[in-house]
Structure formats: C-alpha cells, structure tokens
C-alpha cells in the first residue's frame, strides 16, 4: 500500500499553508478532501461529454448516460448490492433517509406503531422519524446508550418489540466513533418484522461494507465524505421494498407514460430520481470509488484506527482533556479541554493551521446525553499522517497553555 504521505500528495488542496502553517485537515467526518483523479473526472465530464442522460440519441448523450450508469454499477459493486436496481442516486444521506421516511414510512407506520433509533444519531436520522411519528401518531423510541457511548444487544432486544415498524441506526457515530453492531440489530429488527435502515455516512468511506451481509433493508450514504463531490449520495434499498414504494418527487426523468390526468413510473431505480440527476457528481463518485478501491478499504480502516489510537494515547496523558466515546472506535476523536470552550479551542488550532470541528456536530440529543453544550472533534482519513497527529497534539497543548495564560 502507498504510505499516507504518498496518498496525501494526491490531494491538491492539502498542499497549502493556512495562517502561515502547513494545513493539517482533521475534519473529514464533516467532508473529505478530493483527490486529483476525482476533480479530473468531473472536469473531464464538463469539458468533453456534458449532456443530459437517458435521452440516448446523440453521441454525447450516450457517453453521459454510460458515465452515470457506470458509476451506479461501481457503487453496486462497492457495497455488494445484488442489483443496480437497488442503487438510487440522491443528493446525500439526508435526502435518502427522508425518502425512506416519507415513502416507506408513510405507508407502513400507523398509529401506536414504534420507530426505534438511538441517542447518538445525527439529526438527519432523527428528525425525519420525529416528523413521521408526529404525523402518524407513532411512538419514537430510543435504544439507551452504555456509559462509554456504545450499544448493548440486550438493550436492543428489550427496546424493539412487535409494534416496531422501523429501526434506524447509524453504522459509525460521527461524534463518538462508535461502530454499531448493525448486522445483529438488523437480525433483531427482522425477528420482529421491522424494517432496518442504516445511516452509513461515516462507515462507507472508511471500511468495507457489504449490504447483503449486514442484511439491512435500507443503507444510506454520501459521496462527499468518501472523496467524491458534494451533492451526490446513495440510497441502497432491497428491491422487493423499493418496488412497492411510491416516489416522493414527481416530474421529468422518473415517468413511464404521462396522460392528462394520470401517469406511471419508470422502473427501479429511476422512479426515485425525478429531474435531471447529479450527473457530474455521480461520475465523480465513481472516480472516488476507483481511488478508494485502489488503496484498499481494509488498509484505510486500519490506518485510521492506528491514527485514532495514537492521538488518544497522547491526549489521555494531558491534564484537563476529556475524550468521549468507547475504546474501540473508528478514526474519530471528540474531546473537550477544561475551561476552554471548543469554539475558542478551534480558533487557536486554526491559527496553527489545524482544522478541527467545534460545535454540536448535528447531534444535539447526543450532546444532551454527554451533558455538554458543544465539543471539539478531530477526524482522520487516509491522507492524514502521524505527523498530522503530532501537530494537532502540540497545538492542543499550545491552546491549553494560551488560555491558561490569558485566564492567569
């Protein structure tokens, strides 16, 4: 495998100084950077074969269609779906979960039924279910968290009941780094006749994901967190479920026949892709998948776990630094420093060229559970190096000293 330093050179944006220091980008959980080959693929599409898809007759049109549908096949292979009909291109994870809530949810959840989620979910996997529960008079239930921010299967089994119609859980927490046992949770959901949705925004970019092995009915993720462009995401759904679901967006591109007072839909997956799709985005996502596969997802996962462990090791030796989340985790380290608000911390780190996230990370219910208003987060990806972690740790030390002085 290439070294992280070699991989880093594939990302043009990382070769710059921020505030007079070499950029150390530790915010990939928010969005990842893009390698030259992804930027080139998007560029090439616009320069050479930009055209609308599925209109077949002219040459550029069929090149664009091949690019767009070729990307769908790459996604299918990447997550081991059995058919391209199961791969719906949408704007991102949020849109994908909303589609399931507004279509499958609307038709399958009734008064008194239960929807089960966890307190660690991102807002995008909370609010669509809150809205659905309110509209249907259904009950939104939370699987409780263990003290370290993990989930126990015992709690899963006692929360999911025969009234549960949908279980929606994130694969990897964007705050705690927890890797949830989604395969086991799916088995429990299915044993009670509930459908299972997995929010894969933080897993697909970083580890091998086999949707058939997990067995979930729906699996959602975003292109921009996996070296692809913004504006493109994927909903994987089992064919037998997608088939019976109504579209939620109507118009061009998704129809079969249109009469004055009625219309019929295209077959899967296009009936869910109303309007001109994000063609360049899908092609860019295909290039991102080629890039990630070229390096190997197992190697990427191992590299990030190593960086997180290396960072944790040093942070635990620092006085007055609290790290959240379980011991076994993905490449995400969320923390707070005593007496320094994470916003102030992030400003000092930024002055040192280190980009971290500060705030509630779109997980306000989880912040409540942690009993904090905000946290700082460093997240790692394949282009981060041990030197990045060293710079981060020494900047964190500087920040603590700085505020120690000004509070003096």
């Amino acid at each position, binding site marked *: 495998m290439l070294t992280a330093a070699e991989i880093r050179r594939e990302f043009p944006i990382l070769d710059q100084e921020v505030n007079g220091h070499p950029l150390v980008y530790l915010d990939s959980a928010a969005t990842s950077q893009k390698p030259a080959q992804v930027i080139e693929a998007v560029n090439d599409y616009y320069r050479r074969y930009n055209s609308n898809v599925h209109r077949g007759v002219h040459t550029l049109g069929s090149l664009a269609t091949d690019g767009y549908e070729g990307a769908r096949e790459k996604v299918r292979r990447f997550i081991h779906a059995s058919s391209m009909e199961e791969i719906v291109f949408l704007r991102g994870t949020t849109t994908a979960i909303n589609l399931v809530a507004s279509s499958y949810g609307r038709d399958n959840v009734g008064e008194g039924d239960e929807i089960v989620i966890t307190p660690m979910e991102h807002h995008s996997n909370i609010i669509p279910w809150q809205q659905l529960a309110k509209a249907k008079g259904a009950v939104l239930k939370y699987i409780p968290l263990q003290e370290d921010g993990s989930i126990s299967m015992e709690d899963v089994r006692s929360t999911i009941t025969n009234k549960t119609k949908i279980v929606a859980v994130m694969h990897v927490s964007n705050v705690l780094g927890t890797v949830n046992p989604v395969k086991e949770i799916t088995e429990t959901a299915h044993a009670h006749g509930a459908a299972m949705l997995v929010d894969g925004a933080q897993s697909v970019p970083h580890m091998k994901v086999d949707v058939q092995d997990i067995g979930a009915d729906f699996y959602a993720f975003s292109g921009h967190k996996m070296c692809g462009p913004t504006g493109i995401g994927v909903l994987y759904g089992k064919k037998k479920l997608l088939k019976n679901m109504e579209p939620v967006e109507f118009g061009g591109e998704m129809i079969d026949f249109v009469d004055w007072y009625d219309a019929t839909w295209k077959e899967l997956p296009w009936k869910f892709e109303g309007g001109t799709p994000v063609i360049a985005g899908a092609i860019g996502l295909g290039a991102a998948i080629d890039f990630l596969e070229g390096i190997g997802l197992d190697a990427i996962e191992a590299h990030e776990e190593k960086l997180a462990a290396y960072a944790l090791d040093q942070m635990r030796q620092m006085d007055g630094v609290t790290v959240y989340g379980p011991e076994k985790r993905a490449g995400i380290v969320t923390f707070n420093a005593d007496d320094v608000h994470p*916003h102030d911390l992030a400003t000092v780190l*930024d002055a040192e060229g280190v980009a971290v996230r500060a*705030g509630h990370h779109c997980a306000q219910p989880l912040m409540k559970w942690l009993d904090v*208003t905000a946290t700082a987060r460093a997240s790692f990806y394949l282009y981060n190096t041990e030197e990045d972690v060293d710079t981060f740790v020494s900047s964190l030390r500087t920040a603590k000293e*700085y505020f120690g002085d*000004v509070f003096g």
Partner: protein
Amino acid sequence: MSLGNLDTLYRQVIMDHYKNPRNRGELEGDILKVDMNNPTCGDRIQLQMRVEDDQIAEAKFNGEGCSISLSSASMMTQTVKGMKTEDALRMSSLFSDMMLGKEIDAAGMDLGDIEALQGVAKFPARIKCATLAWKAMEQGLAEEEEA
C-alpha cells in the same frame, strides 16, 4: 511559534468579562425575555430586560457559549443598562459595523469595554459569536415596540 494574531482576538478585558460576567442572572417581575441561539455551534443566551419609558432600566443574561459570545453579552448588558432604547439600537448598529471591519463614528457614544471586541472582525468565523447578545437585544426591543 507566533500566536500574536490571537492576542488581537483574546484581549485581557474580554477574558475578564468571560471569567467574571457582569449582569449574569435573572430579573424579577414584569420583564422582556428573549432566547436566542446560534444553531451552528450551540451557543445560546437568554436576555432579560426591563424597559421603562423608552429606557432599558435593567438588563441581565444567562446562557452558555464561548468566550466571545459570553463576554460580548456581559459587555452589552453593561453598556445598554440605563440607555434610551434608541441609543441602545444605535450602539447595536455601530457594533455590527465594527464587526464588519467598517470605520465607525461613535460621536457622543461611550464604547467602553466594547472596543476590545474590535479584533473579532479579523476572525470571520467568530463574528456571529460576538453579535448574538446584540441581536437578542434588538429583537427584544422590536417585540416591545410591537406590544
């Protein structure tokens, strides 16, 4: 390593207001309450004011946030307490201009500690922290006007 630039942001007087906020607490009786938050970062304040005869007789706040948002709330309450509402609004607009890095004409107004926040203008990501309490004050006075 130079953190010199940061010293223009984290001035001593700011850290003093952060550590020892003025007017933090609750008002009793017939008061105006405004809750305002910064949804991107989770900072939130509740501003309480008693307005009598177009004058801000009392102002207190509660809330959670970073050093910039809390010190700004502390300074804002300190400054507008006792002010005519129209002067408080003029001060707020001066403050907005200051955050945008504009030249300001503070003729007849005593900026006091607020001047220390001038450095925030150089940190665009933090301007919203500094203006939170001021926006709450503006909204409170607008609600009072409507009532």
